[in-house]
């Protein structure tokens, strides 16, 4: 018996030792450090990751890259398309030779994470060396959403602005002369435009449900200019009257248009957002909140009705701010692990600040240009329906969702709350929002 009990002990001990050794190895998880010691005039190849995938978009970006390579014959760019933030995050942590030098992301959500963790390199030295002042180069909201706590690790690469799309034929038929400017006008128009049937609608004025594609809490809150965090960085949704006002407005509109159940049922008949089956394009809804890219889709899909764009209406008590909207955009930066940061900067600088590059790219993919110079350029698409969005982007009241250390998690928390609220599962709005505040603060504390 003695021998038979001793042996397993030894094996266990050996296993534990092996595990401990391996553990120590695992704990030394230093990351490879990049640097700006490369010579950007030497022959070199850099890797650029972006998220665009549609053929027209991919072509636009490769045209841009080709123009860059002509200007810098010594720098070759290897382009990798169709990359999401998850992959960027993961690859930059892993380091390695396949990791990108220049990265771009479709959302501004992760700027806080990218900047605070140092995943993206600080651009201040590069900007100083190239004599670029972000405050005079980029519109305020765009300059703001590309930095976090004074740490500038990204530049805007085209932007998106949100406004109102409306069906002019439906407006005419309903006797509405001009697009609504305040939310009470908007609500009245939405009711007028709605044609209810026994158990649905033959047409809906507006889809207010938070799942109705772009009709999310954060997009609506752009009309109130919500700030999300107080000056100590604590979530202040419950304290901010704008947030409660938005939810109350949405709830009332949902009730006015037939109630949540009926609207949700109608919503499941919507086709995919990015297709010709989009409910605004099919005429299922007469008004929609959407980004500037929809102007291009509407043209490409050849819709049969007459449509136009306008800023989304604002709350009645803030009528003076009409013209504002929610703003976001694509961002570009340099991987901290990159060994070729100087060459990478040349590309970033070109894509984000060269007026011709920004304008031609914006025109090609129908996004809002992201520099003052480009916004003013006569070469920008002059279509009035598109210009609506340039004006929204240039509006001083336009706002964005601020960067947070844990990315867009706070927006997701708010959105999840919105779904609960609109389906009637939240009896007390204030208490509910206080709960969301707590959840957001806990997640931020956990990330620090």
């Amino acid at each position: 018996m003695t021998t038979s009990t001793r042996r397993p002990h030894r094996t266990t001990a050996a296993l534990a030792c092996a595990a401990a050794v391996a553990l120590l190895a695992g704990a030394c998880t230093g990351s490879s450090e990049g640097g700006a010691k490369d010579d950007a005039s030497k022959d070199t190849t850099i890797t650029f990751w972006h998220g665009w995938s549609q053929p027209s978009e991919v072509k636009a970006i490769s045209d841009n890259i080709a123009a860059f390579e002509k200007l810098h014959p010594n720098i070759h760019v290897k382009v990798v398309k169709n990359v999401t933030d998850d992959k960027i995050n993961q690859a930059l942590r892993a380091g390695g030779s396949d990791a990108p030098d220049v990265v771009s992301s479709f959302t501004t959500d992760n700027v806080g994470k990218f900047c605070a963790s140092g995943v993206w390199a600080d651009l201040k030295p590069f900007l100083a060396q190239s004599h670029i002042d972000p405050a005079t180069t980029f519109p305020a909201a765009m300059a703001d959403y590309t930095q976090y706590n004074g740490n500038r690790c990204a530049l805007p690469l085209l932007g998106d602005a949100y406004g109102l799309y409306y069906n002019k034929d439906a407006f005419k038929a309903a006797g509405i002369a001009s697009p609504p400017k305040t939310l009470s006008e908007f609500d009245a128009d939405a009711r007028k435009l709605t044609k209810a049937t026994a158990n649905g609608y033959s047409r809906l004025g507006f889809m207010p449900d938070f799942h109705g594609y772009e009709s999310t809490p954060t997009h609506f809150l752009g009309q109130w200019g919500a700030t999300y965090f107080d000056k100590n960085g604590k979530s202040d949704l419950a304290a901010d009257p704008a947030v409660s006002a938005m939810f109350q407005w949405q709830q009332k509109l949902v009730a006015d248009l037939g109630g949540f159940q009926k609207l949700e049922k109608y919503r499941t008949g919507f086709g995919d957002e990015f297709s010709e089956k989009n409910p605004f394009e099919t005429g299922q809804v007469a008004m929609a909140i959407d980004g500037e890219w929809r102007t291009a889709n509407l043209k490409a899909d050849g819709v049969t009705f007459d449509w136009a764009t306008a800023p989304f209406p604002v709350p009645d008590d803030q009528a003076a701010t009409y013209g504002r909207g929610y703003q976001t955009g694509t961002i570009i930066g340099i991987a901290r692990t990159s060994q070729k940061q100087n060459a990478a900067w040349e590309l970033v600088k070109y894509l984000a600040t060269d007026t011709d590059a920004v304008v031609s790219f914006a025109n090609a993919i129908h996004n809002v240009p992201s520099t003052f110079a480009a916004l003013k350029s006569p070469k920008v698409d002059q279509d009035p329906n598109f210009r609506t969005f340039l004006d929204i982007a240039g509006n001083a009241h336009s706002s964005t969702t601020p960067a947070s250390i844990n990315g867009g998690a706070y927006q997701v928390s708010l959105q999840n709350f919105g779904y609960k609220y609109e389906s009637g599962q939240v009896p007390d709005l204030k208490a509910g929002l206080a709960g969301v505040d707590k959840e957001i603060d806990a997640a931020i504390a956990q990330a620090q």
Partner: protein
Amino acid sequence: MTDALPAAALRARPTPAARAARRRTALHWIAVHALGVAAALFFLLPFVFLFLTSMMSDQQALTSDLWPHHWAWGNYSKVWHTPGFLTWWRNTLLYAGLGTVLTVVSSLPVAYALAKFRFRGRRIALMAVISMMMLPPQVVVIPMYLFWAKQLHLSGTLWPLIIPMAFGDAFSIFLLRQFLLTIPREYLEAARIDGCGELRTLLRVTVPMARPAIAAVALFQFFSCWNDYFGPQIYAGENESAWTLSYGLESFKGAHHTNWNLTMAATLLVMAPVIVLFFFAQKAFIEGVTLTGVKG
């Protein structure tokens, strides 16, 4: 035995009691087969719908018409020629093929030792195998990912998924051991008396006898690699040229939002090899499943 019963029941000229009994049997036959057809519809109709949709034009795939207006075989070649699709195929074959070979080679000796050697700690070892088999892969993924990505710089490749298979796979070890237990000791003794070492006994006697189990293990492993989504998502996700079909298929859907016809064609192209392989190896497969179901 009841194979030809309904026909026979009609032909015979029996007593009333026997007739009633036969009618009952016939009714029983009808009831069972009606249920069978209903179940078969449940299992097969989704395939039919997927196939029909894959044959439609872009527009029709979004309508309520179930039958293609004209058969768009071109959808399949469109999918086949999607950039990346061939690479995903190659990667999946590499992952599944290499993984299967490595698993069988490394698992067989372990299973043999567990089934046929008497040694202290055998029970513990077996329990450890079963525990590992039941372990959700997500439990250890964080340290494993850090290990492969940060120590060995192998993220963006499939090697973090292939290399571990050279060190035995718990499920394969278990299944092989279950089968090896059924090989009578006398065969192995005979081989030993003939002067074979253990390794030669394993190769000369056990392997030929265990061929069905080895085939089953190989098939299971091949399928599990082919179907794997989590592994490629974690390790290969960042590098499109290392994607496998399962992972690539998801992004294909993303790129073709409303083109359900193309997505369904791609989906069927990913299913096809598995199904074809199954038809060739049906017997081994079903035996394998039965083995895992464990005979006491």
